[in-house]
């Protein structure tokens, strides 16, 4: 008796599962219909969503801010970017909000949740992902790519050309200067430093310095290693209160030459880590100033 009941139940479950399966087929097809017909072959995007501060900055630089309809809560430069519709953070985005804004181009970074990127693509939105910036030429390359995407190729080329010239001039100027040993600290607890795999390394090298953490593999670094390498300059990117605290910690080490000469600086994170070719050159000037005060040889 009981057995029969159970068998009946199992059969019922089977039927339920089958019903569910067919129900699910319905939206599956509609996704394809609605999705891919939304924007057939976009040539000149008119509704752009940016998922990275540097992308937002670049869009403003290229003069297409009117087409930018949404960005992240981290997009604060230029200040007008704050007024755009916010669709989430750099990493976690609100799918509904993006979709409802009906964009024809979403510019994502490698930090954007990969599942979200995939999902948007499935919904028929054109998603372009920019990888992590490795060096200055990478910055220029991505900027040019962005220019092509928003149909501002010539403007982009011009900006890149100018930035490259300026960078070359700076390098020429500092060529014969004394090369100080530099450390850029991008995180405290754990101690994270800028390695050679990250474009921040190019600030140091272009400005005529030596990055003591260039060869490091991962981000986390040991304090002992730093003391041993004895950098002449330490640059801390702001992490709120932590930056001041970190500065005090470094100042306690009397043997550290950066502490002895008082060359520990705090810089704004946004300025350093979300570059366009133009802002890179601007920040580079600051670095030259820090590494070679008064044009010191």
């Amino acid at each position: 008796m009981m057995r029969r009941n159970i068998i009946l139940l199992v059969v019922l479950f089977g039927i339920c599962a089958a019903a569910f399966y067919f129900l699910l087929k319905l939206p599956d097809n509609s996704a394809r219909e609605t999705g891919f017909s939304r924007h057939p072959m976009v040539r000149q995007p008119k509704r752009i969503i940016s998922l990275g501060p540097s992308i937002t900055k670049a869009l403003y630089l290229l003069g297409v801010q009117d087409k930018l309809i949404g960005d992240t809560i981290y997009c604060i430069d230029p200040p007008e970017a704050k007024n755009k519709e916010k669709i989430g953070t750099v990493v976690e985005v609100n799918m509904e909000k993006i979709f409802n804004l009906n964009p024809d181009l979403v510019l994502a970074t490698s930090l954007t949740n990969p599942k979200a990127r995939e999902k948007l693509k499935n919904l028929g939105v054109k998603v372009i992902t920019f990888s992590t910036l490795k060096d200055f030429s990478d910055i220029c390359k991505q900027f040019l790519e962005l220019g092509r995407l928003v149909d501002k190729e010539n403007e982009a080329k011009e900006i890149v050309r100018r930035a490259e010239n300026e960078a070359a001039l700076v390098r020429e100027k500092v060529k014969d200067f004394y090369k100080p040993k530099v450390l850029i600290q991008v995180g405290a607890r754990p101690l994270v430093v800028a390695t050679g795999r990250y474009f921040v390394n190019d600030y140091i090298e272009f400005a005529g310095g030596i990055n003591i953490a260039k060869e490091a593999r991962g981000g986390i670094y040991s304090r002992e290693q730093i003391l041993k390498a004895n950098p002449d300059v330490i640059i801390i990117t702001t992490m709120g209160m932590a930056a001041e605290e970190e500065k005090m910690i470094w100042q306690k080490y009397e043997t550290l030459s950066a502490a002895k000469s008082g060359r520990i600086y705090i810089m704004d994170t946004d300025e350093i880590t979300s570059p366009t070719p133009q802002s890179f050159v601007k920040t580079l000037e600051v670095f030259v100033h820090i590494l070679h005060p008064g044009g010191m040889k």
Partner: protein
Amino acid sequence: MRRKVFHWSVWILVLFCLLLATVLFSFCAGSVAMPLKKILKVIFEGRGTSEYSILFDIRLPRIILGFAIGGALSLAGVILQGMFRNPLVEPYTLGISGGAAVGVCLNIVLGLSRGLGIISLPVCGFLGAILVILFVYSLSIRKGILKIQGLLLTGVMISFISSSLIMLIMSISHTEDLHGIVFWVMGSLEEPNWLLIKLALGIAVFGLAVSYLFCFDLNAFSLGEEEALHLGINVERAKRLLFIVASLLTGFSVSVAGIIGFVGLVVPHFIRMFVGSDHRILLITSFLCGAIFLIFCDTLARIIIAPLELPVGVITGILGGSLFIYALSKKQVSLGGK
């Protein structure tokens, strides 16, 4: 007997209604507000509009996945708690989630997902889970007898080892990979692949059906293994099958949705307070209640600080934990088996 069946039917009916209400709530709520009236209009007339897409391509998959994962995790919780006669056991105790997490982390760090596409993440997670299941199982089986306590201890150790391994991987990986790992560990019901969602649903329902075949065995287990044997239960077969069902449910859930804590621990206890510890009703109601709970939590996570989204684990932990403590203080019931 008849009164019992009536009582149970009422519970199932109530939970079904709750499920329906939660699903409707989840459909309506979001950063793009859609009142009930509008939804009906969109469903019947709105094919091809962006509202239709939001409902059926963004909200519906999450609801279905929430149903499947919530149900599967609570079901695994009931099975394991019943089998081990231990109220603290949950699906993640046996190290299965740890194995899946290590699998996914290795995938991200080695860059497999870049070459093979994002689908390789759940695949690697599932492989990791299966490896752990096989390992734990083979260690605890002696002369055809599954040692329950050994199983539990090995599982706990495996989860410690794997969480250390994850930390190791995280500390030596590059920044861009780190984000992928953190995402995954936090757990989310966002899943772009329809096939995986359907599969999750299928496996959850299948798990419920199979475990229901063993509801009498589970009831007998609550008296102790020896007593169950004397009652004529094939104890070894039941233990083995139940373990495999519970681990597959967990392994699959974890590899699709990441680690969503608390559902598998709290829901079975919570339900036991209301319907009692007869597994004939406990299995079904736990499944339904887990599904309701997870869908509800996920909806909250979506809307609480919109347009930003909270990890769903935050809500399940806070809401589940406090609700449970409240219920516990109101109603003194013996928890778990014995």
